[in-house]
Structures are given as structure tokens and as C-alpha cells.
């Protein structure tokens, strides 16, 4: 068989396997389907293979909605890359490049330089997991920021190497159990602390770096829009629960993310050129146990019989209190942009005057 014939046969086989029929022409369709008529940009489409209730899939979709359509993406290896692009399909509707695990920022730098050379305004995004950002891709990211590329780097922080089976990363919270930091007789989960990445990013003195959470979609999207308007390197870390790795019910993804913010363990802050310029105040501060108790990765901390559990709970509470203190997260009075005010809904969306 000719190479061409082989390719065609392989393609047919793949199509058979994935049930793909050739798409009818999309242009000039007589009637727009309800999906096509959605009043938002669908940069990341359905049919991706993320687990039920995946926070990372949601976070990426929310980012794409307000970043697209004139963008291109360099995506590090990890769940997001894998579940969106099961060959021969892609859930992306913008130009998208899979880099390696370690070099999304470097690839994005190159793409940005190419755009510049071609005189194009297309914004380049770089996507990576926490493993690809806090750990292995960190030096590439640092270089990209330092060279001042016009790239928005988004880290989807699910606090472990999920794609390869829940190994600890430097972003995994203290005392969480993972396959490489198992809780047991010797240890109460991860021994070390979650790396304060945002401060390191801030030290690069870039125009905008912020943390966001899938639980506060409006706030997350405001930050994306702001970063899109900055001509220079910007950075966003989005707290994205993983029902599989954190071991919580898939329906609880938003609830878990919300409690992380409300207890102070995941502070939402904005940093411009090294200075904190905004934080989301917490209207009703919750105890960390409200957050921990929803997740299997902290189940060992909920055992009353184990004295180490009480100590670790107290440690995590102290870490949350520390965040609340250093970022001044305790709201003085109800505010439309605090944790409760940001979440409030009204008929036909958010009440007038909210972000």
C-alpha cells in the first residue's frame, strides 16, 4: 500500500474508533444551532475527556470565554492538554500548540516573537498545570517574564500531578495525601508547605499577577480581561479543584473552591509591579475544617483519635490565619466585591453595579 493509502486507512480506522463522521460544512449553515448561538465565545468546546466535575476544564473554559477569539495557545503537558486533544479531535477552537511538560513559557515566548515579527496583534497564552508551572516549567516561565514577552500565562492549579496519577507537586498543600506523599504511620501527608509562587512571580516586577478561583467566575473573568489588555507579561493562577485527586464529590467542585477562599487557604490577590493592589475580602471567614472535611485527601486530618491530626489541623488553620493577616483579607463591612458580594446572583444574572 502507498503511504497515502496507509494514511487514509489509518485515518479511517481512527474515525471508526472514535465514531467520527466527516463534519458537514459549518460555514453558511442555513440554521444556527442553539449551541452556535450561545452568547459567549466557545474557545473550549464540549466533548473533551475531563473527568466529571473537573475544575480545570471549567477554569480553562472560563478563561477562553473572555480571552478569545484572537489568541493562540501554548499548552504544557498535563490533564488539560490530554483531555482536550484526543486525536483526531480537538476541543479547541483557536490555534493551539502542545509544548512539552517543561517549556510552555518558552514556546509561548517564541510564538509571541513570531507574531511580533509578522506585525500581528494576536495575543499568546501559555497554559500549564501546577506541576508544569511551580515545578518543571518554572525556569522557562521565569525567563519569559524576565524577557517581558507579551504573554498571559495561566496556571491551572489543581495542587498535584494529576495526569500521571496524583503525585505531589510543590503546590500540593501541606498535609494533603498524594500517591507520593501518602498519609500513614510515618507521615501526615505532604511534609512541606505549598510554594508561595505568586510572590516569586511578583519579584519579576511584571505588570500584573493574580490569583483567581473557579468558584468566583466573574472575578476570574475580570482578571483575564484585565490581563488581556496589558502589553507585557501577565500571570494568573487559578485554583481548580480535581474531584479525582482531592477525592471529593464531583458536584462539590465549586463548593470546595469557594471554601478554600473563604477559609483563607487560597487568598485571591492582585499584584502589580511587585505591590499588592487588590485583594478579595472575606465576608464570613470559615474555619479551615469546613474546607478540609469535604475532601478525601485530608481525611486523615479528621480522625479524632490521632493527636497528629489535631496538630496538622491547627497548622493549616495557622497558615490560613497567616494569609488573612498578611493580605488583610478580613472585610471590615459588607462589600459588593467581597467573597459574598461577588457570588450574589439576581434575576437575569448579577445585580446591577457588580463586576
Amino acid at each position, binding site marked *: 500500500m502507498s503511504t497515502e493509502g496507509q494514511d487514509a486507512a489509518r485515518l479511517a480506522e481512527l474515525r471508526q474508533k472514535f*465514531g467520527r463522521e466527516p463534519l458537514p460544512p459549518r460555514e453558511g449553515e442555513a440554521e444556527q444551532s442553539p449551541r452556535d448561538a450561545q452568547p459567549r465565545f466557545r474557545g473550549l468546546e464540549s466533548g473533551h475527556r475531563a473527568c466529571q466535575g473537573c475544575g480545570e476544564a471549567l477554569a480553562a473554559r472560563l478563561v477562553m470565554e473572555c480571552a478569545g477569539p484572537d489568541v493562540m495557545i501554548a499548552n504544557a503537558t498535563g490533564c488539560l492538554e490530554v483531555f482536550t486533544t484526543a486525536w483526531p479531535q480537538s476541543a479547541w477552537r483557536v490555534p493551539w500548540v502542545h509544548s512539552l511538560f517543561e517549556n510552555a513559557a518558552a514556546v509561548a515566548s517564541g510564538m509571541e516573537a513570531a507574531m511580533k515579527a509578522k506585525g500581528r496583534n494576536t495575543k499568546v497564552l501559555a497554559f500549564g498545570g501546577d506541576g508544569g508551572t511551580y515545578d518543571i516549567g518554572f525556569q522557562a516561565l521565569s525567563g519569559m517574564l524576565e524577557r517581558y514577552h507579551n504573554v498571559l500565562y495561566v496556571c491551572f492549579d489543581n495542587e498535584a500531578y494529576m495526569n500521571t496519577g496524583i503525585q505531589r507537586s510543590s503546590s500540593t498543600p501541606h498535609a494533603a495525601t498524594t500517591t507520593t506523599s501518602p498519609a500513614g504511620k510515618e507521615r501526615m501527608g505532604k511534609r512541606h508547605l505549598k510554594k508561595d509562587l505568586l510572590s516569586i512571580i511578583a519579584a519579576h516586577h511584571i505588570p500584573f499577577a493574580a490569583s483567581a478561583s473557579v468558584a468566583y467566575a466573574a472575578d476570574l473573568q475580570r482578571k483575564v480581561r484585565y490581563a488581556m489588555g496589558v502589553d507585557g507579561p501577565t500571570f494568573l493562577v487559578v485554583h481548580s479543584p480535581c474531584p479525582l485527586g482531592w477525592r471529593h464529590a464531583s*458536584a462539590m467542585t465549586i*463548593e470546595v473552591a469557594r471554601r478554600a477562599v473563604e477559609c483563607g487557604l487560597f487568598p485571591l490577590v492582585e499584584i502589580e509591579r511587585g505591590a499588592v493592589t487588590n485583594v478579595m475580602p472575606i465576608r464570613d471567614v470559615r474555619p479551615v475544617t469546613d474546607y478540609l472535611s469535604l475532601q478525601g485527601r485530608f481525611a486523615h486530618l479528621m480522625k479524632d483519635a490521632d493527636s497528629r491530626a489535631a496538630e496538622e489541623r491547627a497548622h493549616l488553620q495557622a497558615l490560613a490565619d497567616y494569609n488573612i493577616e498578611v493580605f488583610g483579607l478580613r472585610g471590615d463591612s459588607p462589600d459588593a466585591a467581597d467573597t459574598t458580594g461577588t457570588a450574589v446572583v439576581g434575576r437575569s444574572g448579577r445585580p446591577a453595579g457588580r463586576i
Partner: protein
Amino acid sequence: MTVLTRGAYAGPGTSLDFKTGNWRSTEKPAHIHAKAPCHAACPAGEDQQAWFAKLQEGHAEDAWRELVSANPLPAITGRVCPHPCETACNRVAVEGALAIHNVERWLGDEAMRRNWAYPVTEPAEDAPDVAIVGAGPGGVSAAYHCLRHGLRATLYETAPEAGGLLRSAIPRTRLPRETIDAELARVLGLPGITLHTRARLGRDVTIDELKRKHAAVLLAPGCQEGKEWSVDGAVPADLHEGLHLLKEFMDHGAVPEAKNVIVHGGGNTAMDLCRIMKRSGAETVTLITASVLPGPDADPSDVINVVPRELEEALEEGVEVIEHATINRLIMKGSQVCGAEIQSLRKLPGQDGRSRRVGFEGTERVINVDMVIPCIGERVDPEGLNGLVDHGYLRPSDRFGRLAEERVLALGDARGDRGTVADAIGDGRLAVSAVAAQLAGESDPPADARGEMPSGGLNLGYYEGISRAVAPKLAVADRTFDKEIEGDIGRAAVMAEAERCMACGNCLACDNCWTFCPDNAVIKTEELAVDGSHYLFDMDFCKGCGICAHECPTGFIQMLPEEAGG
């Protein structure tokens, strides 16, 4: 030439060919239509949630039209209803129930100020005509609902004016004459309704005559006869029976003088009389009631059956209450009362399991009084009712009010199991719905089988505390016999109050499901969604994670077993 290498690329959005919907294992999301608790609790059948939704959209007239699809008299009920809707309101779990009655009242008043038209049309000239005996709130509601069903209505009322107890018993301080006159006139003036006043069943017409002339006969005569009252056979010569005294006061504006008064009973008549006696100058007015005042430990079935606000105001005005007590003995001087012996009692389950009131020996004490007013309830005047009265009431067999006699139904207080204006209004609606169905050869309208949405089914994280509107009130010193005590909250407060409604069990169009679905499986479409929301689930892609259901603030989305229909 197809070149297939590791560097090949897939078309944009081609993942849509891969239907992740078959990943759902046991559950799928669905829009469920639950009753808001306010709606479930409303005896008149209003759907407060639905009219608050119109207010939230800024459409006050639409809100009123939605309201009057069940209750034609909102200016009246907004003033006198004990508002069980507020007691049921889920917002209690946030910072306090909505001020539903204040908003209802404003809508009713606004409709009169602006002359909004009732959403009914004149029935055909030859449409069936329904006879209604009694033009109290029950009868008037029935007449109005006839129009909604394309029927004509003829009211027979013995009094010179319509209104029933609204006019004859409820004090003006709570329900001004102008409000009754204006709202009743608007309803009774609708083409298709005929009102005959001074027409008394038993004297001027008979049931048989009405049955011959009309498609059906609805009996709404209320309860006009005081129950007999005596204590161990002692009946004071100058006995003043409660409702009678009250009606006299409404007509002449005066009550007999007394220094120390006991009112015996636990309903609206007792409460209103206490306040009137106090305002007329009685030094002490004491309510003796077998029931208990509302409170955290009070058994709801034992709580005094009055509008909570009235009780509160009565206490403010200095009325004293002795709860869980009865009058054992009257102390007489000749045939005049000069004291009463009170005894404590409790409602306790008896041997047969049915609860009864048990008096406790050793708790007797005497209070000096110069007037005792029994307000222990009223019964139906049996005149002209063809022997349909059974132990004081008409006691129909079903919720529509059917009686033993064909095409004759009972509604309102006369049923014997009702006691509020809203009950009577709801009865009017139900009775007419059954008549209309029967005339059309259909079976009875089915009861609304939808479940109720409890506050536990909401996601309260999406609502923030907003304080409840407070209506202006006359200070105790400024209260008279005819100035209305509670005032209007005004348009701005009404609109702000509407914003507090959480839309329990119904779609708020908040976009949460659309925003939070990780799989883009919620489609926003005003055109295709026909279930009262603007959203559809794309089951081709929904993985059944349950996020939308958990984040739906109102409980409108629930996860149902995969096999379930819908």
C-alpha cells in the same frame, strides 16, 4: 493528499463528535418545578414567587395581574391576612422572611390608583350563570373566578352592602372603609357579575329556586350566629356576646362602658375587642385564652389563632393575656358579674389519643371584673339552608366544597374548617373551578402535586443579607378608632423587597448553571426552553457531575435517576 504525521492537527471543536453524555452513570440533571413555600402556604392560592419575579423585572402591573389570577382582593388581604406565606418563607434561613403582605398591599393600592384592568373578559351573553349566596370575601372571590372561567355570576346578599365580616367586624384601624369600598367596587363592577343586596336566602329566595334558575349554587353565608356561652349555667343579665358587640361598635362607634374587662376566647374577634375596649377607656383588659402565645417552645397547634401583628400591637397597647387558662366560675352580685374564677389548663392527649383540655386543681384564682365578653366563635345561621347545616356548619365533603345536595357547594367560614379572608378567597376559586369543570363535562381539576422547596434545597451562598422593609406604624398614643395603624412602605421599598425573593424552586435566570458547567452542556436559549427557564441541558455532553444542581441557587435543578423521564 492526506499527510498523517505526529504533527498533524485536528479541526477546531471536532471533539463535538465525541458524545460524553454516555459517561453519565446513575444521575442526570433536570429542571424540577417545585412549589415555593410561600405559594404552598397561601390559602388564597397566590404564587408569590411568580409575582415577585415580575417585580424583579420591574413590571409592577404584570405582578399585580399574576397576583389577581388567584386573589382579586390584594389591597384587603395585604392588610388583614395573617400571612402564613411569610411564616413559610425560606428567607428566614438568611435574615428574615420577605415582607410579602406589605408588597401585596402596595400592589392592590397601586392597581386602584392607576386603575389597572383585571385580566378577565365579559362572559358570553348565554354563558351559564352561577348563584352565590353571601357577598363576603368568599362570595366575591367566587364571582370573580366565574368570569375567569367564562361563567356569569349572581350574588345574593342579605346586607345592604357587600363585604361580609370585612365590613361588619374588622376594625377600620386595620382595614379602612375606603379600601373595602374601592376594591370591592372594582371587582363587583366587572361585566358579568350581578349583585342583589337585601336579598336573603330563606326570606327572599330559596335554594330550590336558585337551583332552577342557575347552573350551580355556591353558599358563602359565613358564620353569623354567636355560640351559646355560660359558665356552669350562670349567664350574666347584661351579657355582651363578642361578635355582636363588635358589629354594634362598627355600626355605632361606641361600646358599653366598663372598668375591668375580661375577654374570653382566642381568635380575631377576641383580639379586636380587647383593643377596642382598651381604647374606649377600660382600665384593664384581660384576654383569657386556652391557647398559648407564639414562642419558640409553643406547640404550633396550640398557638392562639390571630394575626401575629395584631397580637403584638394589642400587647403594645396594654392588653393583658392569661394563656392556657379558662373561666371556671362567674362571681355574681345578683345578675351582674363582679368577678371571675380563672383556672389553668393544658391540652393533653387523652386515653383515646385525642387531645383534650385538662384543668388543674389548685390553680383557681379570682379576678375582679365588671364585664365578661365571650368570643368563643360563631356558627352558620341555618335559615333557608334546607337542613344542610350539621352541628353548626355546612361541613362539605371535599376541598371544592361539595354538599349532599347536587350542584350546591359551600365555601368560606360556613364550611366550618376555615377562618380567614384568604381561606374564603381560595375556597371561591376552588369551588368555581369544580363547577366549571363539571359544566364542561370534565373531571375535577387535579391538585397541584408538585413538591415544596425547603430552604435546605437552596444554595444560600448566592444570597446576601438585606434587611426586611419595615412599615411605618402609628405610635400607641396616636391610635384612634379609625386611623389605619400600619402604613404603606412605598414603591422603592417594594422594589427592594422584591429583590430579596430567592425564587425558591424556580429559575432565577441567574446563569449559574450556564457559567459553571465544565462541559458546556447547559445551553442558554430563550427560544427553545419552554419550561419557565432559559436553559436546556445538552444530554449529548452532560457527564452528570451534578455541579449545576449544587450551584443552582433556587433548587430548580436537581439530579434525578438516569431512567426518570423528562
